[in-house]
């Protein structure tokens, strides 16, 4: 019986090739679209949070101990903040220009600031230079106040004065435009002040950011005040959540629409085979055997559809990730079960529903009339 069923199945699929082809295409499309959208949905969180890095630091740590931000504090903050986090020390002091106008001097790790603050429009970043002649970064509004000569500007702090090589200007439309940025070591050497704040960027949603900040608080119990920048943390969480909801809505809608359309196509195709059905029945097949045959045929097509659809869907997700986010989104193994389940349900329903209709028909009248 098994053999004959397999033979029947083989014949049925190979005889009417175009019908099997269309059923396979339909099932492939259904599997491909659900694979692509599910992959996007599961990969979206990481990709979107990555995009929000462009806003820069989302928490501010003010170090209250008199030594300021030393290497040990910075290491403790970095390890508590978790992987993918960025922590950049900043020191501030009020100095004056050559014409005795007060100006904010800031000291920072230039390379880390450059990574953190992608929105800074900088004409040229300071080079690593010997400590005795450091290069500085001047805010676009501060530049006119500095009365620079030959690319050098004189600054004073307390009773000390020094001229610095100007590497470039920074323009942000914010407070940075009024400041002068020095490499941290040069800042401390000039003003005697250490870095006092650390700007931290922690990837993730509000819960993840707050958990990381709690870890930092426990690591540095009396050395620091930790503040999330609410404007950024809350905004990011809300927008990521809404975008995911949107993709989820599209996922459900499109997968269901395509599945129903495929179901209609397949069941109609089965319904058209009433003649096959009548012949088999007239030759003595039982309803159960017929069901098994039609079901097996549907399952074979559906499995083929899942395989080809998963590959196509994965290609679509990878391409969308690459085009939009610059990095591919790979489908995970976890999405295979729901994709396969949806396709198998569609194929099974498509095979069984028409049989219920055909069951009521008499083979004789079917064969004679049509």
């Amino acid at each position, binding site marked *: 019986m098994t053999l004959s069923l397999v033979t029947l199945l083989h014949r049925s699929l190979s005889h009417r090739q*175009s*019908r099997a082809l269309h*059923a396979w*295409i*339909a099932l492939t*499309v*259904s599997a*491909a*679209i659900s694979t692509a*959208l599910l992959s*996007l949905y599961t990969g*979206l969180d990481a990709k*979107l949070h990555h*995009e929000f890095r*462009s*806003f820069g630091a989302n928490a501010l740590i003010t170090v209250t101990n008199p030594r300021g931000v030393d290497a040990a504090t910075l290491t403790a903050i970095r390890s508590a903040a978790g992987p993918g986090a960025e922590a950049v020390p900043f020191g501030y002091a*009020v100095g004056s220009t050559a014409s005795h*106008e*007060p*100006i*904010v001097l800031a000291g920072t790790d230039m390379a880390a600031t450059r990574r953190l603050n992608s*929105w800074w*429009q900088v004409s040229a970043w300071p080079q690593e230079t010997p400590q005795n002649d450091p290069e500085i970064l001047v805010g676009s*509004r*501060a530049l006119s*106040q500095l009365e620079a000569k030959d690319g050098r500007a004189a600054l004073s702090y307390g009773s000390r004065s020094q001229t610095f090589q100007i590497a470039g200007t920074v*323009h942000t*439309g*914010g*407070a940075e435009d*009024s400041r002068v940025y020095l490499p941290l070591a040069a800042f401390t050497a000039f003003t005697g002040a250490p870095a006092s704040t650390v700007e931290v960027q922690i990837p993730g949603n509000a819960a993840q950011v707050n958990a990381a900040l709690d870890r930092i608080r426990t690591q540095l119990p009396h050395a620091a005040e930790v503040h*999330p*920048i*609410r*404007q950024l943390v809350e*905004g990011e969480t*809300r*927008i990521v959540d*809404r*975008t995911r*909801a*949107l*993709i989820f*809505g*599209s996922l459900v*809608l499109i997968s269901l*629409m*395509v599945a*129903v*359309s*495929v179901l*209609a*196509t397949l069941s*109609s*195709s089965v*319904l058209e085979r009433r*003649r096959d059905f009548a012949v088999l029945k007239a030759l003595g097949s039982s309803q159960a055997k017929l069901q098994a045959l039609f079901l097996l045929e549907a399952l074979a097509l559906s499995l083929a559809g899942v395989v080809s659809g998963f590959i196509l869907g994965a290609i679509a997700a990878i391409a*969308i990730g690459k*085009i*939009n986010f610059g990095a591919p989104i790979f489908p995970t193994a976890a999405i295979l079960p729901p994709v396969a389940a949806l396709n198998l349900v569609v194929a099974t329903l498509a095979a069984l529903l028409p049989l219920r209709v055909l069951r009521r028909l008499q083979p004789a009248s079917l064969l004679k009339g049509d």
Partner: protein
Amino acid sequence: MFLRLLLESFLRQRRRRLLAGLAILLGATAITTMLALGTSIGDKINRELNSNYGANIVVYPKADTLDVEVAGVAVKPATNGSYLREADLPKLKNIFWRNNIVGISPELPLTATLNGQRISAVGLWFHHTVSGTGSGNGQSGQSSNDAFTTGAPIVHPWWKLNGAWPDDASPNQAVAGANLAQRAGLHIGDAVTVNDKPVRITGIAATGDDTDNQLLIPLALAQQLTGQSGAVRRVYLSALTKPEDAFARRNPDSLSPRDHDRWYCSPYANSIAYQVDEAIPAAHAEQIRRVAQSEGQILSRISGLMWLVTITSLVAASFAVSSAMATALLERRREIGLMRSLGATQTTIASLFFLETSILAIVTGAIGFVFGSLIAGRIAVQIFGSQIPFNFVLLPVVLALSLLVAIAGSAPSVRLALRLDPATTLREDA
């Protein structure tokens, strides 16, 4: 005869029509939903970004001195330096892109004494009504005389207030930042003295930014305390903008007149800032790059994603509809064979089938458009809390797509059926 064939075909083979119709209906619904979401998502996300991140443009006096402040605390007394005039601010609602300006918040920072203690304070609008003077030449037909209520809480949407904002006109109300309130032991309803003036604390604001350390007072009171009547230090604008591209970064004065118009009429942060400079000659406006640049990037990523998902769905729906059309026609070979053996030409049969398919595609496509628009509206309400209006520009697009996909899906099957010998087709199943 041709018309009768067409009519009979619709009346008789209802089940087969049903399959093709259902497939096109579902496809058109899905595509309309995705297109409606895709076309409006930019605007929705833009508003969402705007209502989360607040100001993206700042306006300074042109002849400005440096801000000497660290962590929001002014180190240099704010009494010197230059100011903007509060009376000039309604001009902001006369610029070309005035309807894109959704929030205006002027600030006048000062140092004051609170119960004898030196603190920093800032004068703000809380619920201030601005009305344009109507001399603008905006693109939309909307009247610029619309009264527009705005202030710091709109431009700083992340501020959380406990209590009530001060009345803009009141000379004796204030809100304390959370840190200041804690440090100075302030509570809602407390009576304090600010520079010897009696002031009542109406609320405590947790802002998560530098304002936490400040006393927030009505702008009029700040002007009174500093003796600078009508003065404003800087103005924050929250504007709906288009993400910056290479064209947006061009210097408008170096563009050809045509490009200049195109630049001027695009809602870039830069062009809105340029128009503010024109409206208030003593002012210099510029984008706050941290917000404007990042918003632009997020916006283009999310709308890009939505478009790619829309295109993918479109391809999937097309394949689903095509295979349904092919299946529906595959079973009609006998009908074609019969017609041919009765003397119908290939052209007649082909036109009959295509006309039939076209009518079906147009009718079900139109129904799909209505369903799809309704579903898109529901999704938008669920996620963004606001409707998407019916976008009738999409109707011809959806109808054209339905028609194209339905005909493309059935064409190979019709051609195949016409190529076969009628005798074989008729005998095939017998």
